[in-house]
């Protein structure tokens, strides 16, 4: 059963924040809503939570239409971007809040709070004031509070965006682990594709109020719906317009109007110059160290002087690359994709 959203729409004045979105989150799966800031993903989440009223459309949960059901009766748990912890309650008081609303007896409540604090790695900190916790700890309390009543649906609104880099990676993996264990539906809103792909069973990419593409992380990455999505997901070798037509001609592909050309760099190999058979020659324009990996900008003369960005480790390159070095660039036919290029 799970959650279904049908043609949901919400405008603020002339701005269509959510523009007729239809989505399904099957039972026990996690959906990531991925998009740049201002694309409407948080508004969509608030519509699902009932914190905003839709202009049109329905929210259906386990077969029941909950569009007009107030938030408090929707049986959901939500983690807010700014945590929204209650400053007048201690850690245990925050986690127990929803249990009190559901009239859980004191003994059972206490046991449940302990269980949840253990789950998020805060065992023994129940009496702490929430002010005194670090950002990461506050986020764990927010997660425990949302999960404590055992909600049928978990909503997470950019839960990691207020934390620093190292903490983000750690908490991301923990949240992924906890959500998998729970087997309840969850929606995870983020602008960070790494988070989305690490946590979700399915990813929905949003742009300007609409969902552009939905699918499992691998499929979405491997064949982005259009040129904008490809760029947003981190594909660097996307040619549009005139440049696309020239490159397409060079690699004997035909390109229609409003189509762009994508080269998936994960399918591309570099071989020593001359060792690639019919593969075109590529000249290093710039070589940048990115930690242990290298990022190369390569000029390919046979592809109408197109610039190809390549990433990989030094062992594939036979020595440190330097501008002017030459390689054979091996791109199998499967590496090329023609994608629609819709006007923004």
């Amino acid at each position, binding site marked *: 059963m799970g959650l279904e959203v049908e043609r949901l729409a919400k405008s603020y004045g002339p701005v269509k924040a959510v523009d007729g979105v239809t989505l399904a989150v099957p039972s026990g799966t996690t959906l990531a809503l991925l998009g740049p800031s201002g694309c409407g993903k948080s508004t969509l989440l608030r519509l699902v939570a*009932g*914190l905003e009223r839709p202009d049109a459309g329905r929210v259906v949960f386990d077969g029941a239409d909950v569009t007009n059901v107030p938030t408090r009766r929707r049986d959901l*748990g939500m983690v*807010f971007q*700014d945590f*929204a*912890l*209650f400053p007048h309650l201690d850690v245990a008081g925050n986690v127990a809040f*929803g249990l009190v609303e559901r009239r859980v007896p004191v003994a059972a409540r206490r046991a449940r709070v302990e269980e949840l604090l253990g789950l998020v790695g805060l065992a023994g900190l129940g009496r702490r004031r929430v002010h005194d916790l670090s950002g990461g700890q506050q986020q764990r309390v927010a997660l425990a509070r949302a999960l404590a009543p055992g909600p049928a649906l978990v909503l997470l609104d950019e839960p990691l965006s207020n934390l620093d880099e190292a903490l983000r990676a750690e908490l991301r993996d923990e949240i992924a682990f906890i959500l998998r264990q729970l087997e309840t539906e969850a929606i995870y809103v983020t602008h960070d594709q790494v988070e989305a792909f690490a946590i979700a069973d399915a990813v929905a990419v949003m742009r300007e109020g609409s969902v552009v593409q939905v699918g499992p992380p691998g499929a979405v990455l491997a064949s982005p719906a259009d040129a904008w999505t490809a760029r947003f997901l981190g594909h660097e070798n996307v040619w549009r317009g005139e440049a696309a037509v020239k490159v397409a001609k060079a690699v004997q592909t035909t390109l229609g109007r409003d189509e762009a050309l994508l080269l998936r760099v994960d399918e591309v190999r570099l071989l020593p110059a001359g060792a690639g058979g019919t593969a075109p020659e590529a000249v290093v324009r710039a070589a940048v160290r990115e930690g242990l990996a290298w990022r190369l900008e390569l000029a390919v003369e046979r592809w109408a002087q197109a610039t190809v960005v390549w990433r990989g480790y030094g062992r594939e390159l036979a020595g440190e690359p330097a501008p002017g070095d030459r390689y054979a660039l091996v791109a199998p036919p499967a590496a090329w994709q023609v994608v629609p290029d819709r006007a923004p």
Partner: protein
Amino acid sequence: MTSRNAFAWGAGALASLFLLAALLVPLGAILWRGVAPEGGRLGAGLLAALGDPYYLGRLWFTTWQALLSTVLTVVLGLPSALLLARYRFAGRRLLTATFTVPFVMPTVVAGMGFLALAGPRGVLGVDLRNTLAVVLAAHVFYNFAVVARLVSGFLAGVGPRLEQAAATLGAGPWRSAWRVTLPLALPATIAAATLVFIFCFTSFGVIVILAPDARFATLEVELYRLTLRLLRLDSAAALALVQLAVVGGLGLVYSRLQARLAVPVAVGHASGRRPRGLGSVLLAGDLALIGAVVLAPLVALGVQGFTAPDGSFPSLVNLQAMFGGTRSVGFATLGSALRNSLTFATLSTTMALLVGLAFAYAVVRGHFAWLDGLSLLPLATSPVTLGLGYLIAYPWLVATFWGVPLAHALIAFPFVTRTLLPALRALPRGQAGAAATLGAGPLRTLTRVELPQIVPSVAVAAAFAFAVSLGEFGASLLLVRPEYATLPVAIFDRLGRPGALNYGAALGLSLVLMVVTALVMVLLQRRGRGEF
């Protein structure tokens, strides 16, 4: 020592000197007089005052009327605060401004308003003079805004996010009000209640105008009576010490609570929702009630001001009465009272701004952080206490023109520093350094870089100081020489004289004071906001 440090040092010295002369020496004089009166044993005066059943009775009355006033004010103010914080609606800003009107009105105007409403010749036709009811009503009227603004301001800063979080956890509007909003509002409410209690504990103008009977004398009124009527300065000093101890203790509680409120609560932008259903009914009812309570005395004052003693309306008899009357000694006409008030207000505003700026500069730029704690001390010193201190410490000063402006400058001082300190603190630290690298000395930096940026705050501080001086009553009554009577003193003087014409003149003068104060406050609202 760099020149900048020397400059800050000079500013700190100026501010310290002012506080020493205008506050600490008079307080010290009271302490000395109260603890070691001429000829007596050490502490004899204080013990005598504490052992006297009459004074204990006054302390008891002062305490319980303040407690009762505070409870009433909170009970009436809290619902308005919650509703104001929760809902957005048309006219909300105007309403908040209306709520603030009584608070900035001089006590004399508030007192005269209630007299016009429920006095011997009042609009309502019932004479509530010398009843507890009218005292409580005036205290609620006067302090309602303190609760409503402090609490709703705090809640608006918390924003709707926490209530939304409560909703996702299963709490409805009433449950989340009970479990989230009210507990959050509790520290702000206690802070506001403490402030209200202090104001009511030292109530003076309201009492001497509305309930002059000895049964209703607060410690502050008793101080005035002992000092000016009975000339028993020893007992007055002892009583002032008791009052200082209570108010000072509560002042400490208040500043502690303020510091706790300053802890950033989980943020969220203020965006209330439109009232619907039951909420809109409650809101409308509450606003109507409060509007009536707040506006009734002021409207009554307006109506009575234009009603002749024979009952004809509208009439200009009262306004004419302000100009005339018997030419006995110390009889103030509108012209002289207005001129005196404006002169004192200008002088004291200038002094308060100068010293306040020096103070803020020394605290922010120099090593005078300890001074910061002193800036609230004037708030704990009631006006009559201050006047008494001046009488004891500087008898020669009272014979001159300068006692009143000095006292007014001191009373305005906390308002000025509370406005200027945050403004100066908000300036980026690097700016002064940048100005120095470009060749500007400390004075040039102050005039070319720092002052231009805090002009709005200086304007707000000036308006506050001006309004404080215009309305100040207790200290003026003790210090002013008859020929320098200010508007509030002149009103009180007319009220104390027999005859309908004198009462009419008091009404007319109150109207003038109300309008002048309102004008200053309108300018204040235009220019920006203070930190209150």
